[in-house]
């Protein structure tokens, strides 16, 4: 398994270089360093000298990929691509174009993002799986039909509606929690409870239906008939046997997103005023801050790769037949 993991990590290196290259190329196809400077310096009273100075101070006055003005390895290293990308492989994200430490910003924003994303994920998983098991338990009955209809209904509603509707009803009409805002520590509870509930409610439809399908597929298998023949209760059959055997498809979709929970959610954080990572990338794209964009894309790629590796590892945990070689 160790060899497998090392191999996967080594595979990640060219992937990350590729992602970096692609991000860089796409960004600079749309924006020039002059555009970036103008965006940072504003509209009023911007002189060409100020633009040159801005580029020079941030290293955007160099060629993109090849610096033919110098010799040796400097040809490749004295370029924007190298100087902005190489340090990221040791997780040194440098500074944003407005001069703030990106690493510090990420570290600061990660907590609030996780405060929403992690409970939403964990409680959501429990709720979705339980609801799906319930529908499976009462399959082909009026309860199951009502459950499926409810899922379809919930799936058809836009996520934004849940947010605005939730804020209106729970915060504005009932005055139970603040409409938006955030505080650190234990005080964060009253701010995160509504986004978490809305996040869970928003996912009930699609996730429960997906898990229901998985469980229905499992429940028709021979080992379930055997378990029933042994006289096990339906609840026991479902929770002990079906759930366990359905773990592989569940884990495939679930484990991979765990590391990405750090990245937060744009819409939720924006509407609830949560100072997380969700809006960091979008704000950076709007401000044409390449330093932040490449750092966040890089981080997203790393976390995704980590998620895929964790998924593989989790297979070995739930299914002893799986060996990573």
């Amino acid at each position, binding site marked *: 398994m160790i060899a497998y993991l090392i191999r996967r990590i080594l595979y990640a290196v060219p992937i990350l270089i590729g992602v970096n290259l692609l991000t860089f190329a796409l960004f600079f196809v749309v924006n020039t360093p002059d555009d970036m400077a103008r965006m940072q310096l504003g509209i009023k009273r911007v002189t060409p000298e100020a633009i040159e100075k801005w580029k020079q101070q941030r290293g955007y006055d160099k060629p993109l990929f090849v610096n033919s003005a110098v010799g040796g390895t400097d040809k490749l290293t004295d370029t924007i691509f190298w100087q902005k990308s190489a340090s990221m492989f040791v997780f040194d994200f440098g500074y944003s174009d407005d*001069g703030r430490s990106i690493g510090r910003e990420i570290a600061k924003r990660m907590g609030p993002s996780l405060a929403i994303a992690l409970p939403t994920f964990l409680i959501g998983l429990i709720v979705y799986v339980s609801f799906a098991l319930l529908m499976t338990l009462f399959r082909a009955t009026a309860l199951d039909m009502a459950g499926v209809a409810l899922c379809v209904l919930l799936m058809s509603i836009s996520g934004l509606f849940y947010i605005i509707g939730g804020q209106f009803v729970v915060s504005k009409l009932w005055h139970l929690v603040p409409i938006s*805002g955030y505080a650190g520590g234990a005080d964060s*509870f009253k701010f995160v409870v509504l986004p978490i509930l809305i996040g869970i409610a928003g996912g009930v439809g699609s996730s429960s239906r997906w898990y229901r399908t998985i469980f229905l597929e499992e429940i028709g298998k021979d080992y379930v008939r055997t378990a029933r023949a042994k006289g096990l209760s339906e609840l026991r059959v479902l929770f002990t046997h079906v759930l366990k055997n359905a773990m592989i498809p569940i884990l495939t979709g679930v484990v991979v997103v765990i590391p990405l929970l750090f990245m937060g959610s744009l819409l939720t954080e924006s509407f609830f*005023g949560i100072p997380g990572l969700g809006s960091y990338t979008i704000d950076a794209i709007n401000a044409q801050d390449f330093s932040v964009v490449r750092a966040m894309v890089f981080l997203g790629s790393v976390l995704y790769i980590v998620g895929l590796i964790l998924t593989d590892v989790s297979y070995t945990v739930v299914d002893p037949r799986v060996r990573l070689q």
Partner: protein
Amino acid sequence: MKALLAALSFLLLAACDGGLWNDPYPVADGGKDILYTAFSERPKHLDPAQAYSENEYEFLALIYSPPLQYHYLKRPYQLVPLAASAMPRVTFLDRNRRVLPEKADPARIAYSVYEIHIKPGMRYQPHPAFVSANYMLDPADLGGVYGLNDFVRTGTREVTAADYAYQIKRLVHPQLHTPIAAVMSEYIVGMKDYAVRLQAAAREHPGDFLDLNRYPLPGVEVVDGMTYRITIHGKYPQFAYWLAMPFFSPMPQEAERFYAQPGMRERNLSLDWWPVGSGPYYLSENEPNRRMVLTRNPFYDSENYPGEGQPGDAQAGLLADAGKPLPLIDRIVFSLEKETIPYWNKFLQGYYDASGISSDSFDQAVQVSVSGEANVSDAMKTQGITLSTAVATSTFYTGFNWLDATIGGNSERARKLRQAIAIAVDFEEFVSIFANGRGIAAQSPIPPGIFGYRDGKEGINRYVYDWADGAPKRKSVAEAQRLLAEAGYPGGVDAGTKQPLVIHLDTTSGGVGNKSRLDWLRKQFDKIGVQLDVRSTDYNRFQDKLRRGDTQMYYFGWNADYPDPENFLFLLHGPQAKASKGGENASNYANPEFDRLFEQMKNMDNSPARQAIIDRMLEILRRDSPWLWGFHPKNYVLQHQWLRNIKPNIMANNKLKYWRVDVGQREQLRRSWNQPELGPLWLAGAALLLFAGGIWLMLRRREEAR
């Protein structure tokens, strides 16, 4: 279920601590003298040498103390001393540096010397930079330091004239981007050379701290501890307005030295992030992803609430606090609100003390009477919310490119075409539809409240309006069609080529939200048979087109730096054309007579003679029509009944220091508006229990059946 129980117990506990369940602020802050407001975009800069945006000045104007400020109550806007003990004494000199009389011919004035005395005894905010031990910090000493509050020891010192001189030098610091560096280099004697000298010094010693005090700047002289002089080229009365901006605040050199230490930048500890000011407040919490907090500077005692204002101010209660030391509020909490819906709802719940009005909530908040007067709606009245309005010192316009062969230039044909379009595009309708009536159609680039603006019949654009029944009335479409025909486009068709006339508009407004505006604009052109082609583009390409003079028509706006007509009319000054000179004249408009008059007008003091010149300039502009004059927006602000001393002041960014909050009334009203409704919670709990019970019963029956 456990999580639900935990949540319920927490909510119950929260209810027991005396705080309201939906209160977004800490319970400990209840009943304190705090003003709650919001911001939607984080400031990019907090260094007074670099900041230039409104959202940055909102903070900086309360943190820093430049020599001058705008009187809070008096209109028209009037400069008064802030850190200065009196208005600057201005001496005019000829080229041999001989003193000239005050009324000397501006042509003879080679230099103007501004002598500024600052108030003695002003002190800086508490800051670690004023503790000598904090100068020899090793990066390792900063292990647990993430903000200024993590420094145990702070100090202060008296503000000196040398600090003001130091900040002026910083305007051309090679590592800073000062937006007004180019303008100031044109005026402040020796500043251009000074910038070159500093650049050379920085190149010579890269990475070293650049001690600006080692390099004298001829145009800035420190006379004594409390006096300094600024010498500028020629006569430039508008210079006084710059002295009211944070660019000219005092800067202690200790602050720069403190932040230049190794390890500071990595912790986001910089002057651009943690200002060091001597103003009424200091930045005590800086988390622009969440909130920024200004706390009363304990050493600020140099200013009192004004004792006089406009007629009617006393009756409005605006002089009730006259003579009281400023600021009147202990703390200002700015919370980040990116979305308008939560912001608006929190205002209605009493968690923000004042609010602007977004288009979404306009109908809920405001009702416009038949006479066009705006008032708060009945729902707002019930809550005791009041409305203040003021016309902004801004203008939104649509420019024609003077370099364009069809629509630009000085030919009679192009002029008539522009005049025809100016009549056809009905900005009164635009303001009514798209700005909820919050604006007035512009008659020229100069908005109301600025010297040179004329109200009534004298002030109308007679090429677009007639004066009828005591109000300007837009000329008829038939008149526009007549002008169009005279321009050689009868019915919108080029008489020569027989091709329909197509005008191209370059804009960054391409999204769904802007579709209705663009459709409306197309319809306006359609009235005279002219086709409008909208070329939507991204911001960078748009800017690029403007720089190259590659547009035909474009949207733009301008927000005044200071309340002087020069700050609007320079947008059409030929030598400041964008395409050829990189200036702010995006239309590349050029008219020799206008340019000559501008040169004459810009250095004059406000007087009937200056007004006469401006009248002539506006007449030229209206005839040439290089812009569709667009509209001047109106600012609408709603405030709760517990807020006192509110008077709209578009120029003053430091107005919050005059505001007062009746904390007791706010607490009482918040409580009455925000009592939690527990019924739905019990109902949800009961429903859940019922559902669980039902499932359990069904399962039991099923098992029994087996």
